[in-house]
Structures are given as structure tokens and as C-alpha cells.
């Protein structure tokens, strides 16, 4: 796992509306090393404010031409500044960082479960799966609080996923949480849960619910977690989450270095 500290030039920084943007740059070394689920530490700051870099998942990445996309939402000062960066501006990035998703065995079906912006890293995974020779079924279950917050359904569809949507307010797709959608999906006739592996990303309660549903059906899966990160490279011990080891012992693991991808059953959800 080799990470690079780079100054790259922004190719484009497109406003997707509803406070979301997609930023692209090219860097062959980062792109060449990146795998789905990994992230970048981006300096979104003018001088000392905000101080720390901000972590953003790799949304898509082409190993061939080195193009990397970051899909992000304006949340606070860092992401707001980022959204104002014009094409051509230099961006300081460190990456790729963290452990990405373990790719599924040949032939195994895939269920992507995204809550809101959780779709960001899952799209890179969807693209990689689409590029595989051996085909497999890939479902993308995308949830959000409302219609406007649903994240890139058309793109997931174009990447070969069967897309299913849910919104908390019922404004699009089935009404309720995406974990509920997963539950009914796994319950649907003709679906053999054990033939699938789940990849989930989103807010912690949504991941906890997903882990619960996966457990219920005995489906293996992974989730990508977020935590406040100061360094992003495993040095500060700041981004830990409580995990339960196989023997049941409590411990902390770093989201940036031991994650951000964890088996769904590893985080100690009750303690988070």
C-alpha cells in the first residue's frame, strides 16, 4: 500500500446541484495504486483555515489515463472552499489511503448498499466490477432521506447495476430506510442470500442496521466507515472505532489505516 503526496491540477469541479460537486484531476501514480474503498486526504484550505486535510473517497478512477473523480457534499468550511476551486487550480492530495474493499469471489453476486453520500466509494467498486471479464449480478440499493438526496442512480445503472431506490420520506422508490430495502430484497423470492456479498457505506446507524440485516440472513459483507481524521495515514491514533475481535475481546482499530473498510460484523456497533 503505497501512498503519494501530490500537487495535482483540477480538471473540473462540477456543481451537481443540491450542494454536491464532482471534482476531477489526473494523477497516474495515485490512480495506478488506487482500489475501490480507498480515500484521499485533500487540503481544502486557504492557509490555516480549516487546518486539517479532509478525507474524501475515490468516487471513480481510471488506472489507464490517471483520472480520479471525487464526489463530495458541501458540509462546512473545508468542503465549501473546495467547491470554489476553479479548474486549473493546484490541489494538494495524499493517497490512495486505507484498505479498500476485498473484491468478491468470482461469480458471487454483489449488493451495494448506500445511504446518502455513501454512494461515493461504492461507485468506484461498481465500475471495477463492470470492467471484470466474468459477469455477475450487481444490485445497487441507494437510499436517502428524500428524492433530491439520492446519489447518482443513473450512473450506477449505466455501470451495469440493477438499481433499487428508497427514501425516508417516500418521495422516490420505496419508503423507509435502505436497510429495510435490503431486508425485503433478501426476502424476495428467488434470491439466495448466501450467494451474495454486501458492500455498504453511509451514516453509522444505517450501517449498523445493514449489519443487523446481513447477520439475520447470514450474508457476508463489508462496510466503509467514517471517523474524524487528523492524519489519515495511521500516525495519530485519532480515528479509532471500537471493534470486537474474533475471541470477543474489545479493542480499537484505526479507520484510516485498518479501515475504512471493515467486515460488517467487526465494529462493535453497540459501543459506537
Amino acid at each position, binding site marked *: 500500500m*503505497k*501512498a*503519494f*503526496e501530490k500537487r495535482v491540477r483540477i480538471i473540473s469541479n462540477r456543481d451537481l446541484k443540491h450542494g454536491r460537486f464532482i471534482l476531477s484531476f489526473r494523477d497516474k501514480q495515485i490512480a495506478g495504486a488506487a482500489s475501490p474503498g480507498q480515500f484521499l486526504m485533500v*487540503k481544502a484550505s486557504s492557509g*490555516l*483555515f*480549516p*487546518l*486539517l*486535510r479532509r478525507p474524501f473517497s475515490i468516487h471513480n478512477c481510471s488506472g489507464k489515463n490517471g483520472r480520479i473523480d471525487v464526489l463530495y457534499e458541501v458540509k462546512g468550511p473545508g468542503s465549501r472552499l473546495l467547491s470554489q476551486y476553479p479548474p486549473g487550480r493546484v490541489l*494538494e492530495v*495524499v493517497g490512495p489511503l486505507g484498505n479498500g474493499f476485498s473484491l468478491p469471489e468470482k461469480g458471487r453476486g454483489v449488493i451495494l448498499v448506500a445511504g446518502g453520500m455513501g454512494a461515493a466509494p461504492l461507485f468506484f467498486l461498481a465500475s471495477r466490477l463492470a470492467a471484470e471479464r466474468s459477469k455477475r449480478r450487481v444490485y445497487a440499493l441507494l437510499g436517502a432521506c428524500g428524492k433530491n438526496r439520492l446519489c447518482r442512480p443513473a450512473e450506477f445503472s449505466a455501470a451495469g447495476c440493477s438499481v433499487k431506490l428508497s427514501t425516508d420520506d417516500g418521495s422516490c422508490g420505496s419508503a423507509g430506510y435502505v436497510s429495510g430495502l435490503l431486508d425485503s430484497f433478501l426476502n424476495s423470492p428467488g434470491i439466495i442470500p448466501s450467494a451474495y456479498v454486501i458492500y455498504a457505506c453511509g451514516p453509522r446507524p444505517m450501517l449498523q442496521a445493514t449489519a443487523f440485516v446481513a447477520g439475520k440472513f447470514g450474508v457476508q459483507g463489508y462496510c466503509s466507515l467514517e*471517523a*474524524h*481524521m*487528523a*492524519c*489519515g*495515514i*495511521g*500516525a*495519530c*491514533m*485519532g*480515528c*479509532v*472505532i*471500537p471493534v470486537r475481535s474474533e475471541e470477543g475481546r*474489545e*479493542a*480499537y482499530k484505526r479507520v484510516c*489505516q485498518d479501515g475504512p473498510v471493515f467486515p460488517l460484523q467487526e465494529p462493535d456497533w453497540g459501543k459506537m
Partner: protein
Amino acid sequence: MGEDVVMSRIRTEVRIGRMVLRTPVTVASGTFGYASEFSGFFDLRVLGAVTTKTVTLRPRKGNVPPRTCETPAGMLNSVGLENPGIEVFLKEKMPFLAGHKVPVIVSIASESDNREFIELARRLDHCREAAAIELNISCPNIRHTTARPGTALIAQDAGATYRLVRAVRAVTKKPIITKLSPNVTDIVSIAAAAEEAGSDAVALINTITGMSIDASSRKPRIGAVIGGLSGPAIRPVAVRMVWEVSRKVSIPVIGMGGICDTDSALEFLLAGASAVAVGTGNFLKPSLADEIVKGIREYMRANRFGSVSMLRKGMKYAR
């Protein structure tokens, strides 16, 4: 060639006890992991020394998350000295650390009383790879019992500092660096106690105790409620303390606190430090220490300073 001649006149090395740092730049304990995290970003051999995350006798789980949050030009942390313990450290971390021909300063702390410090120092005294021992008596994230009432840290009490340094001095010939806390009325008296007890150097500052509250959730921003403030925000406090201490003690001072570029590193050397440590700055830019090593050398050349100790003498001020 002309440049090479000039270069060769610039001596960037500094001594701390028997230890020689080739450049006046090290890293602050706890901000550089065990060095492997950074070895991909620059050649570690440019550093004068590597300082490890603080190690305790037993493995330590550390504090409850969230452990970090951002504050204006700074950050709070309440890591709570999570570390694998001296045993695992020596077996799993030291070999990598020792593989770079850079002196390794091992930072140690006790979870209870002085005996743990002594035990740790004894072990390290036998460890060829440890170039020096840093006594972390100033971590705001653990509480000690040996200081007098009203003070939670050894480094808040000159007497307790003296006794500890003295006790460690008795069990090791390795250079001892005492890491001081800024959370004191008079840091000079603590530094003087460390010097008198035989410390080879003092390192300052550790973090300033701080707290931040999220008004919307009405919760402290870090799980442990109170943590340590670091980063550029605290630099004026750190520079002032280095200035005060280095004019009163004669052992070398390692200055740190908010170094984020060459100019801020130079502030410390001008204020009287013999060397500097890059801390939170490592998070802002993984190759920062490398940039600063080059920057200091460049500054020394441009301003005709032949050695690091000339910098403090180059300071201009009235009174």
C-alpha cells in the same frame, strides 16, 4: 562548486548529551507514529532523530473516541497514549525504526508511579537501538499520582519532576530528554528542576489542556471531554516558553508547538531552541519535516549562519 564550499561551512548538527543529530529537526512524539507511516513520503535520514509515540510498560487501549477535533488553527486530541506496550514496541516497531541510521528517541510514560518509568528506562538502557529516552511527564490525557495536590502531571510540580528525573538518571546513561507541560505557572522552574536532576535536554511544549463543545449537539467534541491543544494556534505560547527556558537553563532545548513551515521552525531556533520537533504539522503535510530541514539549511546559507547555535545569537531585540 562555489556552492559546495559554502555548503560545507554550514554545520547543521546539534548534540544532546552523547547523541548527535545531523540536522536540528526531529518529530514530536505521537505525531509520527513509529516512523513507518512516513517513510514513503520522504527519506527519514534527513531527520536529526526520530521520536516515537510514547510507550508504556503495558499495552494501553487509549481513550474513548472521538479522539480528535479541529479548533481554530489547531486541534484537540485525547488519544490517551494508546500503544502496544514496551514488549511489542521493541519487537515489532524498533527494528524498522532502527533501520534508518537515524537516532531513535524513545518516549516513555508511566501509568502509575515513578517505578514504571524506571523499569522502562532500565529496559531501554540495554537497547542499543535507543539513542535517547524522552520522559513524557506532561501528557494531559493521563493522570499521575506522584505530583502534589492541585497538579495532575509530574511536569506541573518542580519537586516531582526533580525526583523522577533523578531516579531515571540513576538507572541509565542514555541521554535523557524531559518533556515539559505548558500548563504551568512557571515553566522555567520546572525546566531548572529537570536540569538540576541531570536531564540532558528539555523538550517543550506538550499540548495545552483544552475543550471544545458542539453547540448543536451540546456535547463535548471529544469523547474524553478534555484533551490537548496542538497546532499553529499554540505556537506563540510555545515560542515564549522556549525563549524563557533557554535563557535560564544551559541544557539544550528542543522546541515544538505549531511548527507548520520553515519560518515557524526558525522562530524556535531564534528563540533559543537547539533543535525543533514537527508535530501536528506532519498531519498537514506528511513531507513537512523534510521541507523544513531544507528550509533551515537554505536560511542558514542565505544569512551566513555557520552553525545552528549561531541562530539564537542572531536574534535582535531591545532590552
